[in-house]
């Protein structure tokens, strides 16, 4: 009951905020050249979806995200495993990777523009760079954090190193590894959409930038809404998956 009340209040607040914007724009208090009416945005969003434009851009964005994340995953899990397996390297690289992770890494995107040109390759490279570090750190941290008693139990049962890894260490490390993957996916998604917007190529990010350049304000807000909805869906799905892994 309490949860329902919270949910209803949240919906009511969002509806009230949208209604207020609608009234302020209709009355001319807010310039329609700057802020679109929520109803106009909803209509533009529907038209763009029904017309096939948003589904097409969505597929482009998701394609770029999938390639970036796929490369991040393969390389990230591999490097993470290496850094766990060879402890000296792991300890040394944890600091280096942490420093890169904490830096505003997306600001190197002009370098990728120079190298790959204004192409999806630049977007994918940026997505990969943002996504792989949390995956590496998640993989290593997960395996490092496995309770030694579990491993000792495996050893006392005379299990081989390979079996101990696959049957004991990897499942025990799974929540942290998945956490790193979730973070990596979020960073990849954000970077891909961000670079699409900045360079005006690719999918949904391009839609916002192009609509702004053409002064199609309703479409611009529709693009922003589509991106917010997309991010929300992926965050919700990944939280649910994370809960299952735990």
């Amino acid at each position, binding site marked *: 009951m309490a949860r329902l009340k919270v949910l209803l209040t949240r919906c009511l607040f969002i509806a009230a905020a949208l209604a207020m914007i609608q009234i302020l724009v209709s009355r001319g208090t807010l310039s329609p050249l700057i802020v679109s009416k929520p109803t106009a945005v909803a209509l533009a969003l529907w038209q763009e979806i029904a017309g096939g434009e948003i589904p097409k851009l969505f597929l482009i964005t998701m394609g770029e995200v999938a390639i970036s994340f796929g490369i991040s995953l393969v390389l990230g899990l591999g490097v993470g495993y290496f850094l766990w397996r060879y402890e000296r390297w792991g300890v040394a690289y944890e600091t280096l990777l942490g420093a890169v992770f904490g830096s505003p890494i997306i600001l190197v995107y002009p370098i990728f523009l120079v190298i790959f040109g204004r192409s999806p390759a630049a977007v994918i490279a940026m997505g990969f760079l943002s996504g792989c570090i949390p995956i590496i750190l998640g993989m290593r941290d997960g395996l490092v954090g496995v309770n030694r008693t579990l491993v000792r139990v495996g050893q006392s049962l005379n299990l081989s190193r390979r079996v101990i890894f696959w049957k004991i260490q990897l499942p025990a490390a799974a929540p942290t590894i998945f956490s790193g993957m979730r973070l990596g996916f979020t960073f990849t998604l954000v970077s891909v959409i961000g670079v699409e917007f900045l360079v005006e190529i690719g999918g949904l990010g391009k839609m916002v930038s192009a609509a702004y350049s053409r002064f199609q304000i309703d479409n611009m807000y529709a693009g922003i809404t589509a*991106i917010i909805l997309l991010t929300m869906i992926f965050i919700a799905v990944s939280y649910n998956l994370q809960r299952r892994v735990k």
Partner: protein
Amino acid sequence: MDAEATRRFQTQRHFLGKIPDTAVIQGVSILAFLVLWEAVSRTGIIFKELVPSAFTVAVRVWNLLASGEFWPHLWISLYEIGLGFAVAAVIGVGLGILLGAHKFWRNVSEPVFLYLAATPKIIFFPICLMLLGLDTGSKMAIGALSGFFPIVICTMTGAREVSPILLRVARSLRASPLQIYTKVYFPAILRHLFAGFRLGMGVTIIGTFLGEIKLSRGGLGFLAIGFYSQFNLASMYAVIVLIFVLAGVANWIMGILLARFSRYRGTLET
């Protein structure tokens, strides 16, 4: 286990003498990266003429610092970042304490903030441009918007963890709501506040520079993308290096502040 490993390797001495193993690996890795960069640049095997040598970039960094061209842009960026961060901090902390102090309102608002925090904030930049124009205002706004979310979320987390005993004591002493916010909540959440400030500063810097790169009339981002348009790649790389140094210094300062205030705890530990 990890701290134990770090200690073990830091006490293990390498053949080089007193230098720990980890430092040797780190040093060699950084050196290898620079050598690889230099080799790619000089041989031109891949990315021909697209990667200036590390030495050239270092010289350009020096030239930029010595020239009068760099400093006005740096002040513009610092102004935008400073004001953007201040706005994010004031609104984020105020709203974070207000909403975080009440369980119901915290539950209502927290998911909205969490979802919006994960959205790429730069897509809101056109709105900032339309509202505030091409000058510093729009960059400040996108910086503030970026920094707001980590600050409000960390503040709310801090407010949630404030010990009810502290609040009960304050109420029994007939403290006014304002006094409870300023004298109980604020000091009790300093640790979370500075963790939020550190994250917030990082994303404010990113938001501001991305805004400058996209559309602006000044700032280091503007300078970098200007060099890109002129195909003056060494100077572009040099500006990016300086931006990273700036971000590193900001992160270091916030880290010191976080360490300083981490000893404040809002919970009563037994």
